[in-house]
């Protein structure tokens, strides 16, 4: 079943790839706005400096430290712009996720108008679910802190650093597992609210919880397989990226192209998550019509 869903999902993503470009464009534009200031700082620091020729071929730790110190105020102020941009970005991303969910829900209606219609229709519901997910993530981090204090207390009088490390690693694994579960839960809550046309948040959450309870193995396996695709993409990018030289500077165009390909690929993976989750949800909640058949004897004979 997973194989079938994956194939169907990949087909859907390829068929609707134009929406990945929409995700990418928004990401590109916001990142560009946030990068203009840094580019200006770099330009004022390096554009007429011979150091820029040296930095073109090799990195320099001293210059890096000096740059961070000289432009500390500008870089610190960027944090605020970054926070505002992230909030804006998350809201836009929610809108787009609502749009593609609508498209994947009814594959024949994949016009751009259907996408925006779905976006408008589901945005509020999805935003509420995102908020719930955000608070659950915050809770997961608080739990992680509490476990940290517990481990520190338990090992405060111990000289055994190895066991301390083992328990801290376990805590990290618990946190990652919780984050995956919350993401899975938020994803299926969104899918459930769209597919079931349910706008009531508690009912959506209940439906998603029931669904995940009944189908946890298949949903988590599918989730991990798609996540693995994303990891493979990042590994391939890093391997190729290591072979690209830093000089002459024109090679930055190749690096930049490769980076943007990775970003687009990741949006493809995000769409794949949605496509497979919608398809899986629809298939797994579909009513199974049990047909009882009986073999009828063939009546032959002479009258």
């Amino acid at each position, binding site marked *: 079943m997973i194989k079938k869903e994956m194939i169907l999902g990949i087909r859907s993503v390829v068929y609707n790839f134009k929406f990945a470009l929409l995700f990418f464009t928004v990401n*590109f534009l916001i990142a*560009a706005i946030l990068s203009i200031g*840094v580019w200006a700082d770099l330009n004022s620091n*390096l554009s007429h400096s011979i150091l820029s020729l040296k930095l073109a071929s090799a990195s320099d*730790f001293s210059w890096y*430290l000096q740059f961070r110190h000289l432009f500390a105020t500008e870089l610190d102020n960027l944090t605020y712009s970054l926070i505002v941009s992230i909030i804006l970005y998350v809201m836009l991303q929610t809108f787009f996720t609502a749009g593609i969910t609508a498209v994947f829900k009814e594959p024949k209606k994949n016009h751009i108008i259907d996408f925006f219609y779905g976006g408008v229709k589901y945005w509020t519901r999805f935003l509420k679910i995102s908020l719930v997910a955000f608070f659950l993530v915050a809770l997961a981090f608080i739990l992680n802190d509490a476990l940290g204090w517990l481990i520190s207390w338990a090992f405060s009088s111990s*000289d055994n650093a190895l066991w301390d*490390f083992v328990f801290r690693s376990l805590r990290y694994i618990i946190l990652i597992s919780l984050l995956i579960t919350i993401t899975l839960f938020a994803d299926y809550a969104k899918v459930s609210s769209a597919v079931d046309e349910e706008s009531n948040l508690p009912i959506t959450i209940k439906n998603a919880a029931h669904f995940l309870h009944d189908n946890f193995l298949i949903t988590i396996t599918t989730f991990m397989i798609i996540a693995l695709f994303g990891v493979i993409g990042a590994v391939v990018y890093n391997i190729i990226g290591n072979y690209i030289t830093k000089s002459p*500077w024109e090679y930055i165009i190749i690096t930049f192209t490769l980076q943007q390909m990775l970003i687009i690929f990741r949006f493809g993976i995000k769409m794949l998550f949605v496509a497979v989750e919608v398809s899986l949800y629809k298939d797994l909640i579909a009513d199974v019509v049990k047909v009882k058949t009986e073999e009828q004897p063939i009546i032959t004979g002479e009258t």
Partner: protein
Amino acid sequence: MLPLFLLLSISFLSFKGMGREVLIPKINSSHKEKIAGKIHPIAKPLYNIKIDYNWNKQLLRCKVNVKADSSFIKESSLWFELPANGLKSPRTLFASANKLGKENFTGFQFDKISVNGKTPDARYSVLFKGFNADSTLLRINTPGNTGVPLNVSFEYSLLVPRGDFIFGVSEKNDFSVLRGFYPVLLSPNSKILNLPPNGVVDFPPADFSVTVKIPENIKVLNPEFSRSSSGVLSSKMKNRKETILFFSGKSEEIIKDSLSLKDFEVNIFCESSSENYIPRIKRAVLNASKFLEENIGLSLNGNIMIVDLPRSLRLNNFYSSGVAAFHINLFSPVWTKHPEADVIKGLIFRLSDGDFLTDFARSPWLFYGVGEYLTNEIFADSYGKLSQSFKLLSYLPIKGETMFAYNEIPIIYRLNSFEYEPWKELLPEYLSTENKTGFSDIDNVLFSRKDFDFVSTVKPALVLQTLKNFYGADSVNSILSGFFKLTCKMGIMNKAVFDSSVINSLGENGSSIWRALSNSSGNIDYAIAGLTKLYGGVYSLRLSRIGEIALPEKVSVYTDKDTLNFLWDGKSRIKEIVFSSNNKVIGAEIDPQNRNILDVNRADNSYLIEGNYSTAFAYAIHWFFWVQNALMMFGVFG
């Protein structure tokens, strides 16, 4: 008998009007007078310390006898430091900089103080405004004792606190470090700085005779100790700044190893979990010893204890008096610098122990700064570069850099790390220190711990590195070699001796640069303010000194065919040079070899007539990609 309450009650009478105090005037003669010969033979105090250590109660009952000559008397008084009293109350100078819990409090409970058999007038002296409860300085009036050998006796009890600060016992009560547990006679030229945690003072070298009565199942790690037939442990130590004792009651054996060099013995004590670091520790000793011998002309002698502190004992790493005690991390690849740098630092600090006086309180850079420079040099020579790294799960070093982390969890990070020379570790603190004061006279420095680190370690080590860049490694090695040798010859380790060695090695010119770097306060920042073509082949080059400190700088002008070099004295704020060239001038650069690492902005040291925008663009692209990824990561909520 002088009960403690009496001491305390008297102490409040004596603090008024006393700010930062210099007990004895500075040794103020010029260095030229000093190199003529040894200042004076050192009258070393002799400590006879008898400890009855009740391990179960963690209680020390001590009898300490100090024999010294009357040269230690200043204004009819003897001065003792009581380091453990920094932990006496929440209102001490030490407590002002450290959060003490009830398990950390302790203090000397005196039963008896006598000088030459008589009970003297003794009182605590409060030097630091606002810290009236501080009782770390004891002043004993000794009228009529001038010219008479002194015999000062103390009897007291002292609780061994939990080992979070200065000294103490591990949380499991199975390992203890005793340090600062006896009254320390202050040097005749002592100066005390108002610097938390507990001031900075200087101790004269001394000889120690120590006996310890302790249950047989508790082991003393110090190799100098031997157990007599009556079960009492005893030892004699010479020429030490202080005596530091290590005791273990662990059921698990502490791994002991040793290494013998020609005149030097290294004793290593490790937790069993750190056993695999012993070969690395030994290699670090051999590397340091080889470097010091080949480059500085010094051979180590005496002995050193290298102790891996248990993690349930939360003392900071310390290097003093033949002891290098530090925490060895569970995972510590060589590119993190540890434990190699700890071992090297311990060996270098060992060079400051000897039959000579020191001027630690006035010139802490002679220990910390010189130690940091040599540690970095030895590390770079033996192991190469460091890698930028961050810690995952408190233990695992990962090459890279975190830009945003939440409680050990790197949220935004990069796994490409810079590789850099060890001295560059000091640059962030150097750059971030606003008040870049000189370090030659720290009286003028308004102290905080950060200021102290800057003048004692960061700037001196970077200045030595700059001298190395200007004059070569051999010249700086020659300065250091001369410094250590002159110290032994003169009987004192102070700035004047170092200055003499600088003059001997670099001459008057080099010495003037040394003085500019060590004495002056302010930034060093040179810039090219402009390079323009006036007419024909005539160009105008404007050099600018933005920082306060002036140094001679080499300037290069690049044309499409050759390079023109000249030396600028670097004194004027703006210097315009008009020159002509038949070739096309491309750019100009101050300090092209980047010898002056103290310049706070290297990018403006050079100027290209035609701008080059590609590098800024390339770096901006990397930032852009990072932002794209950050947005995607947080976009997971959408």
